[in-house]
């Protein structure tokens, strides 16, 4: 079963987190923008999707018009932000093959039942040379280790399974993505941010890692 119960129960609290942690949220959006193509507007038009769109907190600022989300309460919030939403799961994407130029997935993989299957599904729905940008909490980063240790304090993270960047890259390679084209950025080096931080290339220091891979 998809792990949606806490998201149903605490959708408002989930959405509120982004306001309370504005600097962290903005740092994350900045890091994702760094991986997007310069002619993003033309690509991120009709042919892009966020898988696990949640309440639309990333699709909305990045201009992604379409999302997949299992939780009805979260889906309704995304729709209110102007995103077309389809209820569905990453492991069984309801799309024909090779229909997207760009797929985004942000801090969703830690809630998936079958990450390997989900990545293979993303590979299937991408057009040849299409981009997949995946962002996640890096379990092996200094802050990631704290998240892992304290995860039972959060109604969301208590059901999460965090991954290291090495585990994630192995799963991406297994799904068919070419490791020679992986690009990494990282951010969120500290929890008590007063203002948004700049991202750095690579991984290992930041809790929030984003990888861009190409089909």
């Amino acid at each position, binding site marked *: 079963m998809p792990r949606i119960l806490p998201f149903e129960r605490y959708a408002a609290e989930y959405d509120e987190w982004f306001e309370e942690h504005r600097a962290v949220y903005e740092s994350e959006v900045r890091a994702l923008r760094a991986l997007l193509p310069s002619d993003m507007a033309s690509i991120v038009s009709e042919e892009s999707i966020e898988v696990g769109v949640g309440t639309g907190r990333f699709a909305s600022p990045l201009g992604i018009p*379409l999302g997949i989300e299992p939780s009805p309460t979260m889906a309704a919030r995304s729709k209110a932000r102007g995103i*077309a939403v*389809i209820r569905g*799961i990453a492991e069984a*994407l*309801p799309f*024909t093959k090779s229909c997207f130029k760009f797929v985004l997935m942000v801090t969703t993989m830690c809630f998936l039942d079958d990450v390997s299957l989900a990545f293979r599904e993303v590979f299937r729905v991408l057009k040849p040379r299409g981009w997949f940008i995946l962002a996640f909490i890096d379990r092996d980063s200094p802050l990631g280790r704290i998240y892992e240790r304290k995860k039972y304090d959060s109604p969301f993270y208590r059901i999460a399974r965090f991954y290291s960047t090495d585990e994630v890259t192995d799963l991406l390679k297994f799904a068919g993505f070419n490791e020679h084209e992986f690009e990494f950025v990282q951010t969120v080096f500290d929890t008590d941010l007063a203002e948004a931080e700049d991202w750095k290339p690579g991984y290992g220091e930041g809790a929030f890692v984003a990888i861009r891979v190409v089909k």
Partner: protein
Amino acid sequence: MRMRKELMEILACPLCKGDLELSIVEEDANGEVITGTLYCPRCDERYPIEDGIPNLLPPDLRDDSPG
């Protein structure tokens, strides 16, 4: 992009990935489908569209599933 008819070109059955047939019960002035169904003839499965949101969860994960 709302749940308009053009989305039909890329939507597929989550199980067999086959084409779906759209039945519209209600649509708004902008051509957005508000209520209707998406039918997969191969799986003989009906996926509902409610409040403009198609529910393409695998049927065993739907809210109304007996399990």
